[in-house]
């Protein structure tokens, strides 16, 4: 399994090379990868359908409980099949769509990487692995949305998507770690099997809010829905893949996955139904405000995601069935519609719905695919979308909040009905309109995907027995956290859901008929209303302003200011804990010690003072010698002959180097700051000194853990054959540290030589320039 998940990343790196080698066949060659992944996942259909759950685990960081563990159940399998199946057509489509683009290889690389991340996300069992893949999808989608990086709008959309989904990802990480903390495991399968553990924990609300923040940002729920339409700046294959069937569904996947552990409480129901319902309505209204094919599709995607969240929030069996059926239906029709919209754009040069008409003759296959997909989206029988919508009505009628939820569904579905016809039917009928390019059908790669996906949506309607027992059923069971019988059907008798469907269609047809005047009305009403998209800009501007203000205060260019701030904070950090914890450090003013020990200490202080008070360079240099020798004496006194010798040698060499350099500087060694500045600096210096002393007082009053020292002392001779423990630590026990340190010494040496060489070169060249 690990190998299977690594394959997309490996092949992705090779993609630019494959493009060089295979030229116009790139798409077909690279599509083999998702196709074979699809076939690989197909082998699980049978066992998972019969209720089996497969786990694969490889150790990664076992000490932290982080493993590369993967989990195949109905839910993850449904997603994996959608990702690899649609991925196959997307790769084909992208290679044809961007055939002449110089960076097609890079584009396919990102697409394959994204596919690998998405597969990892839906298959992960370990929470950390899940998070890693979750963030990888955010990063790869950033790269894909910003693919046209020379356009400012693309860059903004890419950064926005990354900021929103990445920010949510961080919240999710916190939520997942809290879950792991509460549940005592890093594996989702174990966490979620613990029943009501989370719901009864006092941390439940925090966990819920953090996880929902992750899911809602990723799945573009209001008020975070704004990034998804902006992400339409990406090339169409990206929109068709990421923004219909895969990435934006990651949030829905997460909610469905968490349902057994976190779902079913009142707060869960309220939050999901309210946010999902709001998103559903906002998305479907906004869809009708636009004329750009892709924007309409993006807004309907927002709406569909809202519907899915709402259904998962309702949480009873029928709602879950409906959610899984709708998930499948939506992936099929939305993928097809996006690709078809791209083909229209490719063929005609415009995506403006008001300019497009009568394309059916010129682009028959695209037209057929669009129409079939639109019929499924609008929820007409016998398409699979109809079944999904019927079941959604059945679920809403089962409550809670029957009346409110059902009316939201009817209004939203009616608007989606109109949007579906606007995108999938209107461009192809009527008399041919004027377009920038003469419309013509694209190559087989461009229409194969839409046709296959939309036809699948058609045959899944009558063939719902296969759909429910192999896909929707196992997925719904996984979401519920226990086996669930699912029986989808087209004809449920003349009952309320059918009546609601009929009402939806009637209302939808009406909306479609008045869609252009409705659009004008909506635009004049809400044209200048503040939205979260502006909010994002204001937030970012505020952030930059804050950064500028802080930089202005902190980054003054004055070294003394920097040091003052740093030392002030250090002093506060050292002293504050002692004051807060109230550790009374009552010590005698002159701590008891033998007179010769005090003598050495006083000598050290005299050396330091002499440096400060020195009035000439020579005295200062000699004073450093005094200080260094005194410190060497301290080392010798307290049983550290190695240190004493080292200190002695370093002292000698320091004086030599100091003398070499300082004698060339035009300084007299006197302190040139006046009394006012000295008066300001002395308290800071004194505070630091007191803070360090207090720190040492409290350190030495604590018991010392000698485990490590004793470990070294015991093994120094018996295992490392050395009697000088200090040296054995340096060259054997901790040799890697020493290795790093001698590397630093070499680097310092090289840096000094480089600095001096640069200096002499500079003076030479200056000398040459002067006459």
């Amino acid at each position, binding site marked *: 399994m690990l190998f299977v998940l690594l394959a997309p990343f490996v092949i992705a790196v090779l993609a630019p090379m494959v493009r060089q080698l295979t030229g116009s066949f790139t798409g077909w060659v690279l599509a083999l990868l998702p196709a074979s992944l699809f076939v690989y996942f197909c082998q699980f259909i049978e066992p998972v359908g019969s209720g089996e759950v497969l786990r694969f685990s490889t150790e990664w960081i076992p000490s932290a409980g982080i493993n590369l563990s993967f989990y195949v159940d109905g839910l993850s399998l449904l997603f994996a099949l959608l990702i690899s199946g649609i991925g196959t057509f997307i790769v084909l489509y992208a290679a044809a769509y961007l055939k002449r683009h110089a960076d097609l290889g890079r584009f396919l690389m990102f697409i394959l990487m994204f596919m690998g991340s998405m597969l990892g996300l839906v298959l992960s069992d370990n929470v950390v692995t899940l998070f890693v893949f979750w963030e990888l999808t955010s990063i790869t989608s950033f790269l894909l949305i910003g693919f046209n990086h020379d356009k400012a709008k693309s860059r903004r959309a890419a950064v926005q998507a990354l900021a929103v989904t990445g920010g949510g990802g961080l919240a999710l990480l916190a939520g997942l770690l809290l879950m792991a903390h509460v549940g005592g495991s890093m594996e989702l399968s174990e966490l979620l099997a613990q029943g009501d553990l989370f719901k009864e924990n006092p941390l439940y609300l925090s966990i819920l809010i953090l996880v929902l923040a992750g899911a809602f940002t990723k799945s573009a729920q209001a008020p975070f829905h704004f990034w998804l339409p902006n992400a339409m700046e990406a090339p169409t294959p990206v929109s068709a893949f990421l923004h219909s069937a895969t990435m934006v569904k990651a949030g829905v996947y997460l909610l469905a996955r968490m349902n057994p552990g976190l779902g079913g409480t009142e707060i869960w129901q309220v939050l999901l139904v309210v946010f999902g319902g709001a998103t559903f309505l906002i998305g479907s209204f906004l869809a009708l405000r636009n004329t750009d094919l892709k924007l309409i599709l993006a807004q309907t995607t927002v709406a569909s995601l809202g519907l899915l969240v709402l259904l998962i929030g309702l949480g009873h069996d029928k709602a879950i069935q409906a959610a899984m059926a709708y998930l499948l239906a939506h992936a099929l029709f939305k993928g097809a519609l996006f690709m078809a919209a791209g083909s229209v754009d490719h063929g005609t040069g415009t995506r403006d719905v008001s300019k497009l008409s009568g394309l059916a003759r010129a682009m028959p296959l695209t037209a057929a695919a669009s129409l079939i997909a639109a019929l499924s989206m609008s929820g007409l029988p016998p398409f699979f979308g109809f079944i999904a919508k019927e079941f959604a009505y059945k679920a809403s009628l089962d409550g809670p909040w029957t009346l409110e939820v059902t009316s939201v569904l009817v209004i939203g579905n009616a608007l989606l009905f109109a949007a579906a016809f606007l995108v999938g039917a209107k461009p192809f009928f009527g008399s041919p309109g004027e377009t920038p390019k003469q419309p013509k059908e694209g190559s087989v790669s461009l229409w194969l995907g839409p046709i296959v996906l939309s036809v699948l949506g058609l045959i899944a309607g009558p063939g719902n027995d296969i759909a429910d027992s192999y896909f929707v059923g196992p997925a719904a069971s996984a979401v519920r956290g226990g086996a669930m019988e699912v029986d989808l059907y087209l004809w449920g008798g003349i009952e309320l859901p059918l009546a609601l469907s009929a009402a939806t269609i009637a209302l939808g047809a009406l909306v479609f008929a008045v869609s252009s005047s409705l659009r004008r009305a909506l635009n004049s009403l809400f044209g200048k209303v503040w939205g979260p998209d502006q909010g994002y800009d204001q937030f970012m501007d505020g952030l930059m302003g804050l950064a500028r203000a802080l930089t*202005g205060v902190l*980054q003054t*260019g004055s070294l003394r200011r920097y040091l003052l701030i740093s030392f002030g904070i250090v002093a506060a950090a050292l002293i504050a804990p002692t004051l807060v914890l109230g550790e009374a450090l009552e010590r005698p003013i002159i*701590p008891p010690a033998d007179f010769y020990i005090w003598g050495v200490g006083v000598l050290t202080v005299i050396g330091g003072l002499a440096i400060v008070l020195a009035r000439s360079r020579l005295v200062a240099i000699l004073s450093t010698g005094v200080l260094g020798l005194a410190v060497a004496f301290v080392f010798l006194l307290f049983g*550290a002959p190695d240190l004493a010798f080292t200190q002695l040698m370093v002292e000698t060499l*320091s004086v030599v180097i100091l003398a070499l350099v300082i004698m060339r500087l035009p300084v007299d060694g006197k302190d040139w700051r006046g009394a006012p500045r000295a008066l300001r*600096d002395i308290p800071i210096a004194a505070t*630091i000194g007191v803070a360090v*002393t207090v720190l040492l007082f409290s350190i030495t009053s604590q018991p010392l853990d000698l485990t490590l020292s004793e470990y070294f002392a015991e093994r120094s001779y018996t295992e490392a054959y050395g009697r000088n423990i200090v040296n054995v630590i340096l060259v054997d026990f901790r040799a890697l540290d020493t290795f790093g340190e001698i590397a630093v010494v070499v680097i310092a040496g090289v*840096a000094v030589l480089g600095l001096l060489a640069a200096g002499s070169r500079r003076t030479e060249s200056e000398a040459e320039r002067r006459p």
Partner: protein
Amino acid sequence: MEDAFAMVVGVLFALSVYLLLSGSIMRLVLGIFVLSNATHLLIFVAGRLTLEEPPLIPDMMKVAEPGFANPLPQALILTAIVISFSLFAFLLVLAYRAYQTLGTVDTDEMRYAEPEQSLTSLRGRDV
């Protein structure tokens, strides 16, 4: 003994900070010198002081007799001394080169990377 040297270390830290804040590049360098010595002593004292018992294993014995000085801080300080010496040499040369290039030994006048001008514009809103 530790308390006495805790005070010595505190005084050394105070002296080094006072030197660092002086604004003269030469005193800055001297401040670094005092600071590194003070830090070595800080680690040394934190690892406890033991009089005249180096951590050596006597001949004919396999482990040291109890009461020897703590070897771990000594190993840390030994490398720290050498490293801070290399850093000190580098810093000296850097100061020297800074003087050669910028023609001043006053750190407040060393504004090659952050000229006054850029700061005033930073404080304004229109950057």
